[in-house]
């Protein structure tokens, strides 16, 4: 049979129905016949017919009134009105209401078939048009979605933000509640982001998934989407975390860029969803957008870390040059003094010989201190600084280093002001003493003789605040952070003073941080500097 279209004929003349059924079935149309408007409507509510042939005068309704109801149910149905002489006016009215044609009784079968034929052709065109429109709309939607994903992920070079915003878009555009991304990392997939998953599910999610077996590696291998309609029927261990909490279906696509699959994007729903090809295409496209953004972010990260490494390397080279210089200076004094005593051409007097020995002794101390600083810095770098905390009084810490501070500030006026209500703090006395000594040493180094140096400690909301202030050259704002960097050297120390290793403040910072505190500087160039650190009171 050629024709597969279905036709419903509505007429109260049963003989007529019988004849017309024969004619239509003869031509291959699937034909139904009913004698009343109510039966016609109940059939049409259940199924679609390509055409309806409708008598205008029916026992329970006027065909002209029935027509709008039918068209409301099936807008594209082909309606052909049948009419007697008397009701031509009604038939014309029906055309206005959307009927395709009207035929007068008695019917000419040839005429009927030709009208049906023309009508069906027109209907086919309408259907095709509609399909094209739908296709266009689908493409539009995919394009818009991809555009919005691509815009969202292009906002940042931060890998985490890219993945988070992409997953948010996936939820918004595809309308799934759960989604996640794993990225490939050497021989594993690592969980990099998720959206719409419960805390429990997140806990169950594997942080790492093998690269060699399982659904993720299948996704990568076949380089295309994988859809699981019913998670219960499969036994994917890597998706167990979804199954456990009742998710029913899963779709996953590889994150592909330039022929390389760098991870997977998965979505899940908690009902048996048949993922439409549209959505799978869309998901694949989103996967590509995420892959591009992720790769960009990775490249950016690599470039930044290369830059950071280069900076670190330059800093280390500068540090080594500096250390070498700092070691050579006291060594020059030691070697030169000893060498002087060994020269055969000059015999020095007793006092001069003693002076040489004093120089050797002093610079051996300088060398020792330098080596200690270097060791301390390497401990800090290795996070291996030992801090032996015990409940201590700050005043005892000061007493222990008082002689040394007096020596350091012999040409300055030192003022020590420790508030009486300062509670006992849990500290390593020796280390905190080192910090204070170091700060006072800096104050002396960067201020003129006969100026004031203030050491002050106060009690302030569950912490002890200790400061060392001078009236020296001060520190420009742009250096307030940098001076704590390892190996940083400040300019402007007084002439005749030895330059340090650039390690002192880095060491201070390391010690203070090991006590759970912070160290910072406040300074106006030309008006002195105030270094402060706090220690929490337990």
């Amino acid at each position, binding site marked *: 049979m050629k024709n597969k279209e279905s036709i419903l004929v509505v007429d109260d003349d049963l003989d007529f129905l019988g004849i017309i059924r024969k004619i239509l079935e003869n031509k291959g149309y699937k034909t139904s016949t009913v004698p009343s408007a109510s039966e016609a409507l109940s059939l049409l509510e259940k199924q679609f017919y390509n055409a309806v042939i409708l008598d205008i005068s029916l026992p329970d309704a006027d065909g002209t009134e029935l027509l709008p109801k039918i068209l409301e149910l099936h807008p594209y149905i082909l309606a052909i009105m049948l009419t007697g002489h008397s009701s031509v006016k009604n038939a014309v009215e029906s055309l206005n209401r959307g009927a395709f044609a009207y035929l007068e009784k008695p019917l000419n079968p040839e005429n009927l078939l030709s009208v049906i034929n023309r009508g069906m052709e027109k209907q086919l065109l309408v259907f095709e048009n509609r399909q094209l429109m739908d296709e266009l709309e689908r493409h539009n939607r995919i394009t818009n979605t991809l555009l919005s994903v691509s815009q969202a992920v292009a906002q940042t070079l931060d890998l985490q933000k890219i993945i988070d915003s992409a997953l948010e878009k996936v939820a918004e555009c595809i309308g799934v509640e759960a989604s996640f991304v794993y990225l490939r990392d050497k021989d594993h997939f690592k969980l990099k982001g998720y959206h719409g998953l419960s805390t429990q599910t997140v806990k169950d999610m594997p942080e790492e998934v093998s690269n060699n077996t399982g659904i993720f590696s299948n996704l990568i291998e076949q380089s295309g989407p994988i859809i699981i309609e019913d998670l219960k029927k499969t036994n994917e261990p890597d998706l167990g975390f979804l199954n456990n909490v009742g998710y029913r279906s899963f779709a996953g696509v590889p994150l592909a860029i330039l022929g390389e699959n760098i991870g997977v994007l998965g979505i899940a729903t908690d009902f048996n969803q048949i993922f439409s090809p549209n959505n799978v295409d869309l998901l694949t496209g989103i996967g590509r957008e995420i892959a591009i953004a992720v790769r960009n972010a990775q490249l950016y990260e690599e470039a930044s870390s290369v830059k950071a490494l280069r900076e670190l390397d330059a800093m280390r080279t500068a540090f080594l040059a500096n250390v070498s210089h700092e070691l050579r200076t006291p060594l020059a004094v030691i070697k030169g003094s000893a060498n002087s005593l060994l020269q055969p051409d000059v015999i020095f007097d007793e006092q*001069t010989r003693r002076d040489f020995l004093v120089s050797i002794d002093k610079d051996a101390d300088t060398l020792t201190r330098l080596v200690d600083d270097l060791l301390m810095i390497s401990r800090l770098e290795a996070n291996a600084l030992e801090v032996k905390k015990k409940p201590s009084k700050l005043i005892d810490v000061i007493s222990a280093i008082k002689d040394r501070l007096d020596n350091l500030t012999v040409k300055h006026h030192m003022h020590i002001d420790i508030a009486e209500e300062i509670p006992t703090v849990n500290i390593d006395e020796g280390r905190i003493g080192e910090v204070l000594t170091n700060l006072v040493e800096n104050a002396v180094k960067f201020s003129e003789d006969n100026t004031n140096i203030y050491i002050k400690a106060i009690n302030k909301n569950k912490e002890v605040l200790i400061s060392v202030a001078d009236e020296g050259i001060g520190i420009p704002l742009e250096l307030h952070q940098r001076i704590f960097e390892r190996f940083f050297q400040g300019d402007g120390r007084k002439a005749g003073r030895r330059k340090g290793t650039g390690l002192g403040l880095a060491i201070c910072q390391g010690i203070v941080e090991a006590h759970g505190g912070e160290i910072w500087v406040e300074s106006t160039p030309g008006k002195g500097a105030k270094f402060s650190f706090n220690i929490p009171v337990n």
Partner: protein
Amino acid sequence: MDKKHILIVDDDPAILRLLSTNLKARGYEIFTAIDGAESLEAVQKDFIDLIILDLMMPKIDGVEVCRRVREWSDVPIIILSARGDENDKVKCLDLGADDYLTKPFGIAELMARIKTAFRHRGDPTVAPAQATFACDGLEINFAKRRVTVDGKEVTLTPTEFALLQHLAVNSDKVLTHNMLLQSVWGNEYSSEKEYLRVFVGRLRRKLEPDPKNPKYIQTIPGVGYHIATSTASVA
């Protein structure tokens, strides 16, 4: 003979003390400065025969001191630095320093270098046989230590003059790197090839119309240098 005046510039008081003691004990008159600015003042104020100069100093560093002193004085400068980098060495010599010694150093070595610097300065132990030298516009009056190129006077530092004198006196002979280093500087300098390169460079910049295509001091690649006098006359 009057005492020679030596200015020691170093920001480390211990080094200043060490050098002062040793140099005084060997008959030198000592002046000290603890930074670049002070040293420049001292050079202008006092009569200084030689400067021993540290590089890393606050305010004005040694490289800058060297450059500024060379703008108006040919006083010998010996750099005494804890920076042992070859680049620093070449840079300082290029700027006009006469010698470069790295800390830590031996007293005897420093004394020898000071003597070498003074030897270049003008009491030549061996007076040249001839009084003058002339070659294609370059004229040297050995006795007056005066050099002119096409009649225009050129100021040379003592070491530059010593090198030029040695090349001129031995013109048309090829002088190897070793021969030059030993004759002009001293035996202990035979490994300091960059001294020669830097000082020949300095001479060429002062004497040659086109230092890149020198007409007076010719390089014999891999061997040494010579002054060729096809048209020169020795009086």
